[in-house]
């Protein structure tokens, strides 16, 4: 005879067959989640690549703000080239050393100068760049050029200036009609470049906007699939230019710069051998 307890005890749940539809749903759910996770992994990778590109653009822009700050201190002129031969970067001595660079935080479009800070913030050095941006990543032009031909001629003028110990503070001479916009010289980059050219009777090609066409600072081409570089023209709005592509990202111009640097920069052996 069975006890009351035995009579009322329900059958063990494990014995009951599990509904097939429920299992199928779970398997399908897991599959969907798996597929989503794999796709999300690729999406994150894609975003990471773009993020690096954007970070470099942001750095180039911050550098351009530093240049603009120097315009105020130098009567509207961009800083000259670094006096060390073969260093196509701006002369850091010409940039106000009390300004340090920061990533653009809480900055209003109308007041970009607030990105330049002095000292620490809340005692956290993480907010500002400790060291100057790696200048080997960038090429700076202290004189105005608008196309590859002018660019190559400027490199020749640079070489000549180095050989003759000529200062980069002033305009550089060019062959007749081979300078900025067909002038006989390479004009120094200034705020009022367009005005200077017009005063000297230099014809600016129709439709050309110098603020967009004259490169001031640009990165060396980088990247694997999407090779190119951020170019900062006079209007300070960085533009991504593919490599090879339009000036200054033409193969010929970039190779000419690299050749000039190799030619003029003293090799490490020479430097260490020097007394």
């Amino acid at each position, binding site marked *: 005879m069975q006890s009351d307890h035995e009579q009322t005890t329900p059958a063990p749940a494990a014995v009951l067959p599990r509904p097939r539809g429920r299992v199928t749903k779970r398997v399908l759910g897991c599959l969907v989640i798996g597929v989503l996770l794999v796709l999300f992994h690729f999406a994150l990778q894609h975003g990471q690549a773009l993020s690096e590109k954007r970070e470099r653009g942001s750095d180039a822009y911050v550098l351009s703000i530093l240049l603009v700050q120097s315009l105020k201190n130098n009567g509207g002129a961009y800083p000259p080239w670094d006096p060390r031969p073969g260093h196509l970067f701006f002369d850091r001595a010409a940039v106000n050393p009390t300004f340090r660079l920061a990533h653009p935080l*809480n*900055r*209003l479009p109308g007041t970009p100068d607030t990105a330049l800070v002095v000292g620490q913030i809340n005692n956290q050095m993480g907010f500002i760049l400790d060291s100057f941006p790696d200048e080997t990543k960038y090429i700076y032009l202290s004189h105005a050029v608008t196309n590859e031909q002018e660019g190559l001629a400027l490199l020749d003028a640079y070489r000549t200036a180095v050989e003759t110990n000529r200062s980069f503070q002033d305009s550089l001479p060019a062959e007749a009609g081979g300078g900025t916009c067909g002038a006989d010289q390479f004009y120094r980059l200034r705020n009022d470049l367009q005005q200077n050219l017009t005063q000297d009777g230099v014809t600016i090609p129709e439709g050309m906007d110098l603020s967009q066409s004259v490169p001031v600072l640009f990165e060396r081409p980088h990247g694997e699939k999407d090779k190119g570089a951020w170019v900062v023209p006079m209007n300070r709005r960085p533009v991504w230019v593919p490599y090879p592509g339009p000036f200054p990202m033409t193969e010929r111009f970039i190779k000419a710069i690299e050749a000039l640097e190799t030619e003029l920069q003293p090799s490490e052996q020479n430097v260490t051998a020097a007394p």
Partner: protein
Amino acid sequence: MIQTRSQFSHERYLWLDQARGVVALLFIVSAITWSHRGDLLLEKPTLGPTWLDHGYNYYNGSPPIITIIDVGQPIFLFLVGFSGYIAFSSRLRNKSRWAACRYAVRRVLALYLLSIAGQLIADLGGGAPADWRSLLEQFNWKAVFLTDVLAVIALGAASTYLSVLLISSADWRAWFALALLVVHAFLQAMLVAEHQPFIDSVLGWPQWSFRVLSLSALSILGSSFGQWIHDAPGEMRSRLQKRVMPVACGCLVLGYCMEWVQPSEHHGATMALMLLAAGLSGLLLVVAIAMGEMELEVPLLTGLGRNLLLVFILAGVLGDFYFRLIPDWLVYDSPWAALGLLGLAPICAIVALTRLLEKYGIALRV
């Protein structure tokens, strides 16, 4: 429109007003801390409790710092969906589909009108424009229709009404909201549009503030919670047990997992932040309902919750006018002055006003 208590078109839950009151309080505090957020770059310190201020006011980097204030707006949007469902479905049920749609359109338009008015006040505050053309040129259309707080609420409300109209099942609507959040997570991961509006616009990045997508998804999810709770008055405990608690906890767990791959971020309104907000909103509702069952009430919160829109407008006005009157030297030099003038006075004034309105049963609604 100003309504008296007898004119409400549907039953009002005291516990829901309590929950809304908490969000209203958070909103006032956020307006205060925002007004004195300082400037990282100029070494001007932020004022007020750190945990009631946006994390990015202290550190604007990656991964971002998230505080309770960062979930304030998402919780608000969740409650927009929650109460939006109750208001919309009661019209669907008691009147007609046409009446419900008319209500939805009126409400969304009113929110947009408020958004336009707010932008106009802000523009005119910077000096009267020379003529109408220059005013139109200066006018920030994107903010008014897409990114401004009121615009986000309008879009959240619109998506709630539309989803309730098209998807009658609360469960399916919740799945739909989750799918939208997944889409948003992909868009965010692939950097298809702006993240840091200023630098991204400088770099020519595509500009579309897709945070409205995730915030709208949260509103839709809120409408599911509304349906689970509102449509089963006799089965409240069962619904809380079977739907509200599991979904809220599930959101918290999923949000925690997402934090590892795509952290919470205020401006992007990432999936992790939205899930955190959804989870917290669910728990907030459960606590509010439990308090209601026990007949516990915080009287200050009821008035705030019933006049949420008014609180919203007053907090905005505070930001534009009251805070400008307070000299910086006073609040920066004296913590007592800061506490009195910033920390307490605005809250006390708004609470007193809403209490007075509550006493006479008056509520501002659109």
